[in-house]
């Protein structure tokens, strides 16, 4: 199960709506081994595409170095689908490289840049196998 606080959830949804019709992407970092997504980091989609996303390679290194310095890891890796359902594509599955992360998919196909509900779903992707999991949105993450 993914447990995420409301502000972070809202931040991911807002990012996806803002970047529609291109795919939005980013991570939520958290203390290593904690499974607590505490620090939302919006990334630029270097592909700038409605059907593909990729972190810029220089920004990717900067992000990981920052996480290593802070003893963090990517707890959530998120991106949006803008014309299809919030389910990992074949490409998503093939390129998933963080077996410990929750892969969050948001679909903006219904309302695009506008107000309105989005699909927000979470998965584990390990060795090409996709397992959907429950998403629990809480007011604030409980202290460890």
């Amino acid at each position, binding site marked *: 199960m993914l447990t995420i606080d409301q502000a972070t959830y809202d931040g991911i949804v807002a990012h996806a709506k803002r970047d529609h019709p291109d795919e939005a*992407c980013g*991570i939520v970092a958290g203390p290593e081994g904690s499974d607590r997504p505490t620090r939302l980091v919006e*990334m630029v989609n270097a*592909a700038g595409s409605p*059907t*593909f*996303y*990729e*972190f810029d*390679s*220089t920004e*990717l*290194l900067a992000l*990981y170095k920052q996480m290593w310095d802070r003893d963090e*890891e990517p707890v959530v*890796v998120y*991106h949006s689908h803008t014309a299809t359902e919030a389910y*990992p*594509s*074949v*490409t*998503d599955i093939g*390129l*998933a*490289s*963080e*077996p*410990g992360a929750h892969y969050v998919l948001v679909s903006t196909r219904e309302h695009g840049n506008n107000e309105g509900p989005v699909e927000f779903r979470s998965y584990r992707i390990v060795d090409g196998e996709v397992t959907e999991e429950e998403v629990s949105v809480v007011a604030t993450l409980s202290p460890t």
Partner: protein
Amino acid sequence: MAIEVRIPTILRTYTGGEKAVDASGGTLGAVIDDLEGNHPGIKERLIDTKDGSSDLRRFINIYVNDEDVRFIGGLEAELKDGDQVVVLPAVAGG
């Protein structure tokens, strides 16, 4: 002195769980060959070989002292003792 290579989570199965390992070599290609000697199987995850030529896999990023090696010669990039190499899979999808 040696060259420290930072290994991403997904490839630590090849390094017995180690986050960083030492290697040696004068070019990135040589360092990867040296890594392969100690951690068999890892090279194939980094390099794509087809039609007799080898190149970095499209969705693997390797940095030498914070420079993306694609901008400094790829597998031919020159390394020296004390350099730091970081391997990071792309975060990408469709």
